[in-house]
């Protein structure tokens, strides 16, 4: 599974930056530790060195190590934290310069004494040297090319001069070569594994977030990822609800072979999801042929309800928002109907399958419902949802009376003033004896817009 190719370029760039930041941080931490250890190493190594050179004192063995190791390591660690420098520069600096500072430590008494013939002195420091080298590779775990720079730097500045010094002692020479090769190869391998694991975890994390986003939407996915799901809970917002349903769906299922109906519905859901996404809507629920879509509800918006002074301005903003979103939702439904008719033509489905929808607006509460240990769901509550669903049911009656072959959208009365839609929408007067909108007997008028199927539209054009 190549995760890198499934993610967007900018996501991969972000991941790479995160990984490089981790490398820089670990390199800096490692350098601080080395600054401390190399500064106090003079206290511990004096006894060993003084066996070969009696003039060595604690002071003479300590201050050069502080000056040439402790301080340079600390300065390098500080430089790595300079955010104005690129990651590549900072990691290269670590990979190239750290071995040079390490070699300074060798040059304090140890290598000069070895050059005077005391090559066996190196045996006391060999284990510590190998440990420091491997620690860098495994702990910092840089990307392969920086690892190569680090290996090259150690080889040029440490291994080659050391082999030159001990060339007379064949056993020591072979031991150094053998240990250096084994330790370096092993450490590089372990470091590379760590690097790949870190990268894979980051890519998987981004991929899971991307997959989660496609299922639950940006808002919920971000809330889950930022551990702020509680912020979504009990959020109140003003939004629009569009209930959509296919009219004649049961008849369609019974009259069409199952493979065709399944394939048609798959394409229908894909088309609705794409169009809703295009218009920045949010699909809350799908059940068979029906959709519950919201606009403006899951957008990130500030709650200003506690500031009484702003209520006038906020009401004006909400009104304009509803106006804007209602036009958007109407346009979206129009596009869905258009695509739906094309889909029907593609599958050669006759005219009886059509769409009924209703749009309502109002304050809506977002709640996280359910048992945390079983399954939770981001749910919405509000009168606008009930109103939109009841009006959507009413499309059944209106389609039969007005537009038996086409699709229909009903607007809830509260949207009429905001939208000023009297011109493009028609009015259906509910008279005595007519069926009322369920639970809303006070609605005496219903605003609707009807669309004819394409076949009929084209027939009309031809005639």
């Amino acid at each position: 599974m190549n995760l890198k190719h499934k993610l967007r370029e900018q996501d991969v760039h972000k991941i790479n930056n995160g990984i490089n930041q981790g490398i820089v941080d670990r390199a800096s931490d490692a350098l601080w530790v080395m600054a401390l250890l190399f500064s106090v190493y003079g206290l511990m190594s004096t006894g060993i060195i003084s066996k070969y050179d009696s003039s060595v004192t604690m002071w003479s063995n300590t201050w050069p190590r502080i000056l040439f190791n402790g301080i340079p390591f600390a300065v390098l660690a500080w430089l790595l934290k300079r955010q104005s420098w690129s990651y590549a520069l900072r990691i290269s600096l670590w990979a190239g310069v750290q071995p040079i500072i390490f070699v300074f430590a060798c040059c304090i008494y140890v290598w000069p004494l070895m050059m005077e013939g005391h090559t066996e002195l190196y045996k006391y420091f060999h284990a510590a040297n190998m440990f420091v080298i491997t620690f860098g590779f495994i702990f910092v775990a840089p990307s392969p090319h920086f690892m190569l720079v680090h290996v090259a730097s150690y080889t040029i500045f440490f291994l080659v001069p050391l082999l030159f010094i001990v060339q007379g002692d064949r056993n020591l020479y072979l031991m150094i070569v053998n240990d250096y090769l084994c330790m370096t190869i092993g450490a590089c391998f372990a470091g590379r594994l760590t690097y790949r694991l870190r990268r894979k975890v980051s890519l998987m994390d981004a991929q899971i977030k991307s997959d989660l986003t496609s299922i639950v939407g940006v808002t919920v996915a971000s809330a889950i990822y930022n551990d702020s799901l509680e912020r979504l809970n009990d959020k109140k917002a003003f939004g629009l609800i569009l209930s959509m349903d296919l009219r004649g769906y049961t008849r369609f299922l019974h009259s069409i072979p199952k493979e065709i109906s399944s394939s048609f519905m798959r394409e229908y859901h894909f088309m609705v999801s794409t169009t809703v996404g295009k218009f920045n809507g949010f699909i809350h629920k799908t059940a068979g042929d029906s959709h519950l879509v919201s606009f403006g509800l899951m957008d990130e918006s500030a709650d200003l309800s506690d500031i009484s002074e702003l209520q006038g301005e906020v009401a004006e903003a909400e009104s304009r928002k509803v106006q804007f979103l209602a036009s958007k939702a109407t346009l979206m439904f129009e596009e869905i109907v258009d695509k739906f008719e094309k889909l029907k033509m593609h599958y050669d489905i006759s005219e009886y399958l059509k769409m009924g929808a209703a749009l309502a607006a109002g304050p809506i509460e977002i709640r996280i419902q359910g048992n945390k240990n079983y399954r939770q769901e981001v749910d919405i509550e509000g009168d606008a949802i009930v109103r939109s669903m009841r009006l959507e049911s009413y499309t059944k009656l209106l389609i039969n009376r007005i537009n038996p072959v086409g699709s229909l959208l009903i607007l809830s009365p509260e949207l009429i003033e905001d939208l000023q839609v009297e011109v493009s929408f028609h009015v259906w007067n509910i008279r005595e004896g007519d069926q009322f909108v369920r639970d809303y007997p006070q609605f005496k008028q219903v605003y609707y817009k009807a669309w004819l199927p394409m076949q009929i539209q084209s027939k009309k054009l031809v005639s």
Partner: protein
Amino acid sequence: MYNSLPIFLNLVIWSGSFLIALTPVLVFQPNSLLQSYFYFAVVPVLFILSFIGLAGGLSRLGRRGIIRGTFPRQPFHPIYLLRRIYGVCWTQVYYFKPLYSVALSIPLLKKLLFRVFGYKYSTNFVVYPDTWIRDLPVLKIGEGAYLSNRATIGTNICLSDGNILVDSVEVEEKGLIGHLAVLAPGAKIGKKAEVGVSATIAIRTTLKENSKIHPCCMINHGAVVGEGTKIGTMSYVGVKTILGPHLNIPAGANIPAGMVLMKQEEVNQYYSSETQSIKEHIAAISEKFRGVADYEFKA
């Protein structure tokens, strides 16, 4: 009692600091001129440390009152009283510019000052002595952020209904707040986002990562500016307007309250209609004046 509170706090902070600072001079008898110089040199150091320590220490009495919310501005309201204690202590340090600037210029002292006043996050950001900040416990400034001089990071605002609104202000990593810019309570400035010179970011407005507000813009209450979106100079964004990611809003744009613009085409369409309506107004006005001119000419 209400009016004696600042007197009491100031007395403790000032007198205490002077007493502590003068201790070496008053208590120890110098044996040489060098020792005298040393004791006098220690006085300002001790004064700075004791002043910050005493003011910060006393501010802890009111720390519980530095919380988000709307509270009545009444002297004995439990939260407002605590806010006053904290406020008196903080302003003693803030308006004592020589001391405050010394504290800000030394990283360790800056950290100490911010910590004793309840700031919880990294102090690795740039802030000037005349950058207005207070309510440090509800402030969050990211590493590498830059708060220019004379910028206002307003965590509280007095309302005309007699209340005070307190909310957190967040400036994330490498956020940049320009000279004379104003951030109101609840403002959130994303990573590497930039607020230009003299721009105003109103209550609970969110600027996402890498967004850029050019000079003299007004982003009104509750607006959301998407990631990487740029707003041109002297533009106005209305209450609760939502702007999507990576948009370019032209200079002088007027986006009214409640708009939701998620794509550049929507911005272009909207902006052209705005300019169109202005053109229509200009045409109507010039038409009117042409009539007047004709009339005068004929007369």
